[in-house]
């Protein structure tokens, strides 16, 4: 009897502890969501003045903010596509073929993952200024591809660990050429890894602050717009947009999880 009570208290303590961690993780998000409904109109928009939906309406008129969000989406989409193509080819190529300098490529892949982002940011800044690559949309996309590629490759590599090479040999034996084999055999098998890598690249790009901060020129992404506004107090329409983005991403992920589950059934 006594043992059971001890077990029960232990369990309750465990649940409480987890709730505490989740509270810590979600607390600032609650602040953001609540403040997006705050009727205050005076900077720095901190004291609570009642509930309103005005900021969601005002958001529609805030062209620079919406534009920055549009830039973020363009950059994330373009860099994800590019990084996924380069990364998928590289992951498969490095898995299948042995060649000189492979370990060098491997070493280089870990650099963007391990070094603090600021180092990659400033080194890209010096490169762009030296080579006169215009700083703006283009430089941002190039920078985002650079930090995304390793994550795409590592994701696909995890999938390749259980890969059976004989299905490719079977495809070649049955008369398919290399390209057909790649697109019709290899790629479908690796698809979950490719999709996972792409999703990771996309979210990394959406949220990137530090590398964009050094490589953006005059083009503002949403995180950079937030950074700008922090000095004068983040206005509730930024909170409103953040709330909408959060709802959007949760919706997308639940949707993709559901379709995954259906496929697995």
């Amino acid at each position, binding site marked *: 009897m006594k043992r059971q009570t001890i077990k029960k208290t232990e369990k309750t303590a465990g649940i409480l502890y987890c709730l505490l961690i989740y509270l810590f993780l979600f607390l*600032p998000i609650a602040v953001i969501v609540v403040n997006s409904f705050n009727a205050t109109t005076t900077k720095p928009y901190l004291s609570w003045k009642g509930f309103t939906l005005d900021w969601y309406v005002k958001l529609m008129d805030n062209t620079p903010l919406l534009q920055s969000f549009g830039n973020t989406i363009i950059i994330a989409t373009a860099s994800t596509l590019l990084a996924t193509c380069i990364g998928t080819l590289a992951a498969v190529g490095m898995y299948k073929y042995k060649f000189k300098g492979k370990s060098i490529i491997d070493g280089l892949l870990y650099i963007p993952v391990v070094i603090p982002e600021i180092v990659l940011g400033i080194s890209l800044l010096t490169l762009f200024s030296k080579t006169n690559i215009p700083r703006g949309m283009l430089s941002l996309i190039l920078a985002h591809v650079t930090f995304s590629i390793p994550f795409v490759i590592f994701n696909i590599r995890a999938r390749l660990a259980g890969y059976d090479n004989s299905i490719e040999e079977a495809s070649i034996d049955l008369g398919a050429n290399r390209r057909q084999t790649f697109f019709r055999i290899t790629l479908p098998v690796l698809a979950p890894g490719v999709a996972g890598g792409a999703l990771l690249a996309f979210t990394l790009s959406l949220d990137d602050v530090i590398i964009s901060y050094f490589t953006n020129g005059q083009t503002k992404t949403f995180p950079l717009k937030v950074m700008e506004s922090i000095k004068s107090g983040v206005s509730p329409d930024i909170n409103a947009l953040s709330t909408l983005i959060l709802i959007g991403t949760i919706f997308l992920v639940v949707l993709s999880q559901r379709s995954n589950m259906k496929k697995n059934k």
Partner: protein
Amino acid sequence: MKGRKLKSTVGPAAVMVGPVTLWLAFFVAIPLLYVFLMSFCSLDENYNVVFSFTLDNYARLLDPNYISIYLQSLLIAFLTTVICLVVTYPFAFLIARTLSKYKAVFYMLVIIPFWTNSLIRIYGWRTFLGANGWLNNTLTAMGIIDKPLDLLFTKGTTILGMVYCLLPYMVLPLYTAIEKLDKNLLEASADLGAKKITTYRRIVIPLTASGIFSGSIMVFIPCLGLFFVSDILGGGNSDIIGNLIERQFQSGNNWPLGSALSIILIAVTLLLVKLYQKCGGDLESLGV
């Protein structure tokens, strides 16, 4: 047939690995080499970088003001790592070994907050802790305090922000390591008469060491560079190495000095990664 196969692997290999090689060479290797080179350059009177070899930038790194910031930065990173580890280990253990059917949900709930922009979440903490924030308002309303507490802009708040930003990088490797633990080992240890605490010390912790090491490295290293956290929550009282570098590349406009500062950061990173590998750490587990 066999001959044809052998000969023709060069083509496909080049097509597949060529793009990534060029990309990494141009956007990772060359820029880093260029930063290294720039750390030996000087500035002319118009703040342009000129290529005349000098060690001045490295000499300036020994400025006592800088040294105290490096130490502060290392201290903040160390405390952040220890707090992350101690706080999340029991949490990761509970969610990795739960039998609940909502296990996947518990895991996702750790990741979801990170889909909201990190800057705005850090600003959320500032709002929460500020003089007019929820915490102070609640405490005042409850009559616990008379006037708002001055909580912001200390080393403590910077560490709080760092812990907040980097927590999932500790949770995820720990989760992976703990999930792999064989339940039978724990039972065997208990059957053989070990106390719970002994089982943890002798079985659980050593077997999840890989997660502890990779989590620690993934928290400690970024913590040296996240300048916006100390900007927003530290208010200039808790600068880290990242702030020093940022200033030289923006307002300070002294790129050679900024490059030399970056070289320190690279050196620290390399040292820690080597140490990590010496401890038996696998680079691959730092990937995702």
